[in-house]
């Protein structure tokens, strides 16, 4: 790169400014500023015109073009004629091409950073819109469920069974792992505290009640929101992008009956089973700590657990799990059906489905806590 691109200026006798382009110009070496030209034009007064001398230009690329477009705009602004004959033919052609299509009116957008208040305002307005959409979706789903109860819903039984398999049996490994660990964690936390009073045996009560009443349903819900809710959103979103949803609508099949209903049903049916399973595995997790760390025997631990929990605890948890299932399926399907027309929109839909699902679960959990307290369950 010894022969780097340079500029020099010659004031010709007839009053034109000759710009000499010398050496090898390359984008990597940078683009000379048109400000030099402007400086020259300003210092020499109104120039008669601008011409070029490119005889010593050894190689060129877009750097020359970018520079020339700027010079050309400068000349246009000042009303100075620009003589391009001295330029290489290729450069002249490309320059003509760049200027061939005039800028479309209104195509240029002012990229302005919206102010903080403006963004807060826009988002708040958007919130009202999305709340309305969500309500409309809930209303439509209620109607769809009444259609289901009248045994008139159109969906494929094979789809339902496939979904049941996907969000039932295939979710067992992850549910096993998480709920076992949750049982272990609960037992650990309890053991450290209860050991101080010599009340280690109550670890069994703690783990049992916590798993049955809250943690089993909650952890299953969160796992399924991340696993199945996201999958639902991605499936429906992709179907939207590939126009499968449009094809259903125009063929007279309601996407809500055909796509959303089996998904909701699959989760309503599977969540209670998964929750029961999670309860059980959680208790085993607690027992492993109880037996391993606290010198309790398996029998003592299970007796204590059995005494501590009641059927109400278990059925309360199972009921919650069903509700969480509905929430997960609805938020997954809603976000999927709201999906835009691009692959990035599918990703957004999946993300948003998980967020909506988890928020809905935690909110429902809070509401249940209050209601169960008032009802004395």
């Amino acid at each position, binding site marked *: 790169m010894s022969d780097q691109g340079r500029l020099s200026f010659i004031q010709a006798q007839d009053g034109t400014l000759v710009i000499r382009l010398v050496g090898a110009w390359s984008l990597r070496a940078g683009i000379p500023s048109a400000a030099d030209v402007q400086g020259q034009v300003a210092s020499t007064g109104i120039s008669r015109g601008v011409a070029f001398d490119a005889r010593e230009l050894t190689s060129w690329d877009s750097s020359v073009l970018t520079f020339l477009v700027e010079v050309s705009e400068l000349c246009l602004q000042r009303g100075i004629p620009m003589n391009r004959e001295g330029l290489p033919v290729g450069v002249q052609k490309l320059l003509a091409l760049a200027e061939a299509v005039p800028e479309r009116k209104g195509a240029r957008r002012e990229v302005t950073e919206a102010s903080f208040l403006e963004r807060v305002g826009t988002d708040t307005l958007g919130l009202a819109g999305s709340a309305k959409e969500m309500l409309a979706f809930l209303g439509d789903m209620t109607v769809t469920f009444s259609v289901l109860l009248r045994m008139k819903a159109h969906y494929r039984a094979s789809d339902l069974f496939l979904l049941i398999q996907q969000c039932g049996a295939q979710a067992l490994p992850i549910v096993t792992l998480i709920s076992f660990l949750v049982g272990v964690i609960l037992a650990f936390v309890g053991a450290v505290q209860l050991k101080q009073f010599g009340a280690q045996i109550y670890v069994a009560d703690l783990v049992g009640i916590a798993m049955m009443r809250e943690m089993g349903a909650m952890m299953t819900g969160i796992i399924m929101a991340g696993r199945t809710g996201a999958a639902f959103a991605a499936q429906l979103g992709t179907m939207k992008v*590939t*126009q499968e949803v449009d*094809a259903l609508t*125009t*063929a*007279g*099949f309601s996407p809500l009956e055909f796509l959303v209903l089996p998904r909701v049903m699959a989760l309503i049916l599977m969540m209670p089973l998964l929750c029961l399973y999670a309860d059980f595995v959680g208790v085993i997790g607690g027992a492993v700590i109880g037996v391993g760390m606290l010198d309790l025997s398996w029998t003592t631990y299970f007796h204590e657990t059995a005494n501590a929990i009641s059927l109400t605890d278990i059925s309360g948890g199972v009921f919650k799990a069903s509700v969480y299932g509905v929430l997960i399926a609805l938020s997954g399907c809603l976000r999927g059906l709201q999906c835009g027309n691009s692959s990035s929109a599918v990703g957004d839909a999946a993300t948003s489905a998980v967020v909506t699902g988890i928020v809905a679960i935690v909110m429902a959990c809070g509401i249940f806590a209050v209601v169960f307290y008032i009802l004395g369950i």
Partner: protein
Amino acid sequence: MVGQAPTSNGAKPHITVRDLTMAFGSFVLMRDLNFTVNRGDVFIIMGGSGSGKSTLLRHMIGLIEPARGSIFYGDENFTKAEPEQRQELLRRMGILFQTGGLWSSMTLAENIGMLLEEYTDLNPAEIREVASLKLALVGLKGFEDYYPSQISGGMQKRAGLARAMALDPEVLFFDEPSAGLDPISSRLLDELILELRDSLGATVVVVTHELASIFTIGNNSVFLDPDAKTMTASGDPKELLAHCPDPKVRAFLRRGEKENV
């Protein structure tokens, strides 16, 4: 209407679009669209990229509600129809979506069979036979048990067409049928469209910007100009090429090449 010959004179209007305005929120895409598609026409919706051709088609099949104006099928107002009446009208239409729009969780036979199951009283064996026939018509005999992801893009398009024909529709809509097809497949699809029009007596509406297709199959058309925000020409594309007063339309139909005067 089966077997009705395509005529341009004294033809019966099949689809009438009246004062249609297409808008997204406050952004108006096209306004004051007025045109008539006659029975047996191969009607082309043409225009440059982004001019709203596909959007117009989506309006015509009820996927988007017009901001203003109405679409009529025969004498029935599709836009203002009750849901049941609209379903009834939709049942007489077949639509080939740009991406095929086949239901990916079903085999090709199931894709076609689902419509027959819903709207006819055929038994499963008969449904299977009809599905095979439809697939054979588009040259996909033997592919009944393939899933859409297992066949090529061109085959998906043809399978989509087989599904669109499942209920012997009176109107067939095609959204960019030749997009993503090689020239030969694209020409074969054009021939198929013409044959179906002739044998089923269906009216065909095609969204396309492929000049070869436009001149081979089209006998009526509308040209959408995004700058004017409305239609700037309508009629037989071959006539438009020669006599359209709008230079933009002639340039489009000549691929922008200079006119030999």
